[in-house]
């Protein structure tokens, strides 16, 4: 029997505003515990929340970029539950009047472009962080628990999709497109390690010929791309097995354990919280004026899709290149800076997609933090064009620049990497090689063209790569005569 998985994602994104959602405390990550707190985010008696305008602006931008309808009259609600990381005993969130609704995000899959519908985009506040002493790190078995409220009240965006995703791969593509979009909008750093992008998934499985959705489970704690795929794969398989045996899926919330790669039941539907939502009386309803929306629209940067097209049309790049370069705003900006300084876009693209990307990946470095700047790369490309260095040498120059941040000319001079352009010196080396490699020269003379490449390689070896390969080629042919 054929089964089809149906997946919806619920993502939480910490907005990169300077201050928290409802107070003036700093949102900077990684400071000593409880140093970024005030009466409001600690829920001291008598304190009241104030809406952070910047966070609303960011949310408007995201809602627009996700093609949502903007709610002109939107409201905050209290979501009530007890937990030690939630100092008020309720979270200020949005309920039936979220800021954005009914949008979509286009993603590029192997089967082409697909629209993933966005159910809602809303604002809320983050919770504090609990640290449990004890072997399991869980509250139920903790000897002692400590709370750090620094994160408490950081603006959080919740983006919920419709159940439009079908495979773990698609889910991954969606999440990475969403992350890319948010980074383009500069509303969040979307750093999954620091928890500024978190993801839960709703998963169900149905027989291929059914229209109705199967019973879903919600899987929490999918806080990296790897976890997302693994958890989805596991959960889809688990549900398929149950259904194949004629079993029934229990509607429940499940937790993904990254060490075992399994999902385990957290609570059943019957045990689900009743959050007792009601309108937050401490905040007056938020009116999003047309003017505010227009300002948001005007402040939208060029989004990935548009940029991709422009890269193809404006720079004549192949679609593959345009897609790769625009998959992060930092990389796209890097490319454009290079293109301003150097006239051959495809050459730039090759270097960025090739050596640059592999070095970034190998060293786990973000584009923004790379020591190589557009100036480094374009200066180096000019050195190649001028014949100062060979393309092959350039690779090691580039690596040196990447590691040290020094300019190409400096690297080339200090290491003596300039090309040997002196024909006499090269001619002497060519003669040496011919003398040392009788067999290869014989082969060449007998018509084996491939032997020439070997001989060129030998000359290059003697020069440690500093010779101009075209020049060597010519000199060898002249010496050996023939074709």
């Amino acid at each position, binding site marked *: 029997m054929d089964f089809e998985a149906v997946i919806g994602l619920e993502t939480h994104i910490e907005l990169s505003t300077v201050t928290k959602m409802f107070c003036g405390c700093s949102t900077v990550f990684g400071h000593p515990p409880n140093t970024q707190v005030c*009466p409001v985010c*600690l*829920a*001291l*008696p*008598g*304190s*009241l*929340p*104030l*809406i952070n305008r910047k966070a609303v602006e960011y949310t408007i931008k995201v809602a627009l970029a996700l093609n949502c309808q903007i709610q002109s009259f939107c409201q905050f609600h*209290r979501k*009530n539950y*007890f937990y*030690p990381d939630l*100092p*008020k*005993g*309720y979270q200020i969130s949005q309920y039936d009047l979220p800021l954005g609704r009914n949008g979509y995000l286009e993603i590029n899959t192997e089967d082409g472009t697909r629209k993933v519908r966005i159910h809602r985009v809303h604002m809320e506040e983050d919770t504090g962080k609990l640290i449990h002493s004890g072997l399991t790190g869980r*509250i*139920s078995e903790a000897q002692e*628990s400590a*709370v750090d409220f620094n994160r408490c009240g950081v603006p959080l965006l919740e983006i919920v999709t419709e159940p439009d995703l079908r495979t773990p791969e698609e889910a991954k593509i969606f999440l990475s497109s969403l992350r890319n979009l948010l980074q383009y909008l500069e509303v969040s750093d979307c750093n999954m390690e620091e928890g500024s992008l978190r993801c839960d998934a709703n998963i169900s499985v149905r027989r291929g010929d059914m229209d109705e959705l199967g019973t879903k489970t919600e899987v929490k704690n999918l806080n990296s791309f790897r976890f997302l795929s693994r958890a989805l794969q596991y959960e889809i398989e688990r549900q398929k097995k149950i259904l194949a045996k004629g079993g029934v899926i229990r509607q429940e919330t499940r937790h993904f354990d990254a060490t075992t790669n399994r999902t385990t039941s957290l609570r059943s539907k019957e045990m689900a919280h*009743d959050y*007792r*939502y*009601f309108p937050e*009386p*401490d*905040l*007056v309803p938020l009116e999003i004026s047309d003017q505010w929306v227009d300002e948001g629209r005007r402040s939208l940067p060029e989004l990935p899709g548009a940029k991709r097209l422009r890269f193809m049309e404006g720079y004549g790049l192949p679609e593959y290149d345009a897609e790769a370069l625009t998959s992060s705003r930092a990389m796209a900006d890097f490319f454009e800076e290079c293109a301003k300084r150097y006239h051959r876009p495809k050459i730039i693209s090759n270097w960025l997609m090739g050596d640059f990307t592999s070095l970034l990946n190998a060293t786990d470095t973000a584009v923004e933090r790379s020591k190589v700047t557009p100036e480094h790369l374009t200066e180096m490309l000019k050195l190649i064009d001028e014949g100062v260095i060979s393309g092959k040498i350039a690779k090691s120059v580039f690596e040196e620049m990447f590691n040290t941040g020094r300019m190409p000319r400096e690297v080339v001079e200090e290491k003596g990497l300039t090309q040997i352009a002196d024909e006499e010196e090269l001619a002497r080396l060519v003669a040496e090689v011919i003398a040392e490699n009788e067999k290869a020269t014989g082969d060449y003379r007998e018509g084996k063209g491939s032997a020439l490449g070997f001989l060129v390689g030998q000359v290059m070896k003697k020069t440690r790569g500093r010779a101009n390969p075209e020049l060597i080629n010519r000199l060898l042919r002249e010496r050996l005569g023939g074709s």
Partner: protein
Amino acid sequence: MELWDMKGHQLAEMIEKKEVSVSEVTRSVLDRIRSLEPLLNCYITVLEEESQTLARQIDKYIAQEGHPAPLTGLPMAVKDLICTRGVRTTCGSRILDNYLPVYDATVIQKLKDQRYLPVGKANMDEFAMGSSTENSYYGPTRNPWNTERVPGGSSGGSAAAVAAGEAIVALGSDTGGSIRQPASLCGVVGLKPTYGLVSRYGLVAFASSLDQIGPITRDVQDAAIFLNAIAGHDVMDSTSVKREIPDYTKALVDDVRGLKIGVPQELMVEGVEMKVRDSVNQAIELLVSLGAFCEETSLPYLEHSLSAYYIIAPAEASANLARYDGVKYGHRARGSRNIREMYKKTRSEGFGAEVKRRIMLGTYALSAGYYEAYYGQAQKVRTLIVNDFRQAFQKYDVLVSPTSPTVAFKIGEKVDNPLQMYLSDVCTIPVNLAGIPAISVPCGTSDGLPIGLQIIGRAFDEETILRVAYTFEQYFGFNQSPPLTNPGVQLTEDQKSQVQMSGEGRRR
């Protein structure tokens, strides 16, 4: 006349003219507190040392700088749910028994700018839930007019202190009548401003959409002076309204000619005592004799006020009180084995019966499947009540009614009958639901117990209700003094022995 028995504005004038020092006024009030507190229990915390030190500083300031503000140096009682930095703020609850705020409420900051003089934190029903001040962890307050009777609530400590001379003026808060009803029962003036006129920042929340801070004073003039000091927009409170604040003392004109007064039948309800009804009717006659036009009117949805209020207020309270979980501050139960048990024990031990009752009511009303039937419906009723008032105010400048259907009742009389207790606020609650202002002024006595007249106004039209109240006060001439405040009266041994503090909390 003793200093403690004078009006705030009289003392302010004497202080400004340097006829009396702030230290002398403070000493007089502190003496009064020392002699009466064992009987009345108006305070949870008395700032005996601090207030004298502050009084000396203020005297020094006046000597050097000259100009005191209208509230400078007037001994004030502050209801114990208004945050005062470094001075414990208990809300009348065990759960905050040792809670020291790290910041001042906005009203306190404003009063500090006027160099106010707090003499203590006033007793109250726990988290302002109650109409008799019997629901305090620190024991009940007694009514200075008759110590077997309640002072009303929840600002009972504040009202009793002002009536008895244990404070010259007091800060209260009003969610369903908590300023006006105790003011009425203690024979003083209580003003609930329009929702949004006075900042709620630092007022420990009971029901956020209804709570409002206001003054309790000996006369209308003091109320206007006090309102001048605390009204105004506050960036820290999104529900506070940006608007020009008038000088409320300018409204103190004894002239009601041509003013249209409506008397809602729904507030002259069945439960209103005969003597209360008579006094209110006489008050109306007096206003008519002074040139006001007056007629009966009907606001039909008002009869549903109590039902709507007892859904909305507990619903908001159930969320507002969730923060008292033993994690961050306040009481934490000992010996819990896990977090659920800690929550359960902490809140079971920390909250009193009435608070628990309302948390349960509110939690139930918001629960899945019940929300629409209760909370949703109550909000609709609230809208209808708002409309009723809006329509009435197209026709009338003010509405009048009794503040409380009864005079002060006996301590213990209604503690076992919450519904009976809730009816104490039947005339005041509609005003909170509509967010409009109202003032209670004394309009007579029944068997030596004060009766209050409630004057209700349009939103942000505190000026008109002050004007009507002021005019009435000028011509009515209420005898302010409860028997206790007759100079020279000493507590008899009998009176002293009847004092049995039932509260467990330690007063300071």
